[in-house]
């Protein structure tokens, strides 16, 4: 499962243009990493592509932190 966390952190760092060591499990995309709502849409699309899944909007709106993303992906993978 560490693998998912690593990949999520990579994607978040890349998509939000922040340093990898700024991103922790607790990081909130909007509050801590400076994303806006459209950045979060792009982030969710990047998770979908990397993990080859489809994340419906009902679920996507609950993914606000790195940890949210990791536990969601662990559940569905």
């Amino acid at each position, binding site marked *: 499962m560490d693998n998912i966390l690593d990949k999520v952190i990579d994607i978040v760092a890349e998509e939000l243009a922040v340093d990898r060591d700024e991103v922790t499990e607790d990081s909130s995309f909007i509050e801590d990493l400076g994303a806006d709502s459209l950045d979060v849409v792009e982030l969710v699309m990047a998770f979908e592509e990397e993990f080859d899944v489809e994340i419906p909007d*009902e679920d996507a709106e609950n993914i606000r932190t790195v940890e949210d993303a990791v536990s969601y992906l662990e559940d569905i993978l």
Partner: protein
Amino acid sequence: MALKTELCDLLEIEKPIIQGGMAWVATGELAAAVSNAGGLGVIGAGSAPADVIEKEIDKVRKLTDKPFGLNIMLLSPFAEDIIDLAIAKEVPVITTGAGNPGKYVKRFQEIGSKVIPVVPSVALAKRMARLDVDAVIAEGTEAGGHVGELTTMALVPQVVDAVDIPVIAAGGVGDGRGLAAILALGASGVQIGTRFVCSEECTASLNFKKAIVGARDRDAVVTGRSTGHPVRNLKNKLTKEMDKLESQGVDPKKIEEIGSGKLRDAVIDGNVKEGSVMAGQISGMISEIKSVKEIIEEILLKAEETIKSNYNLLN
């Protein structure tokens, strides 16, 4: 040789023009006038409660038997009620703004309403297309009211390339040259807001219309960037005050509070000095208040002329 696009077939309208669902401004009267003139009139729900909007829907149905739409502003505290109302009333076309309508789309599709979300980015356009929405409105920052960052010129062709449903362009179109231009970018229709504000049928205060008629090219400025919900409105006491507070680093929540209710002040009460005169960058192009029918006919005529003269460049 009349100008027609796939959007006309999709929405069962004669002319590829839909009217922006502007809060407070887009009442039943304006929407019905646009539908009667061959476009798609749209009621703007803004932040109004459901009982107010129900009356507007009834008004449109009384004034026209043509298709019309309802714009749902997803940031509204009444958004859920408005969605229930739209479904109960079987509004033929739903447009949405200020957010991601993904989780509601299915409910509209189940009753046969057409769904057309406003999208300010390629990623959101792609997600919407995946839900089988009927079209998307790609709105550039030239528009009035809540705006994104990208220009219409840059956003429209990128959205057109990303999705295989009709794309409606919005923001920066105030006449037939603009319509011809967005067709050239691959859009199949246009959403126009500000030009319709300055119509005889629009119920906004005369002060509001005159402020737009009197505006010059650089007057439609963006305020409230720090709040995450930036708004384009005409420069006045309010926009200067907001700029000042933003440059002082005042808490965005406080800035949001100051903006609240200000659109109503301008549209209904005609307080265009201290209210928010939401209008697009094409305000400087508007010099006259005319009937909706004249506005639409003029846009179509000029668009056809423009397309023909551009064609004649080829020789």
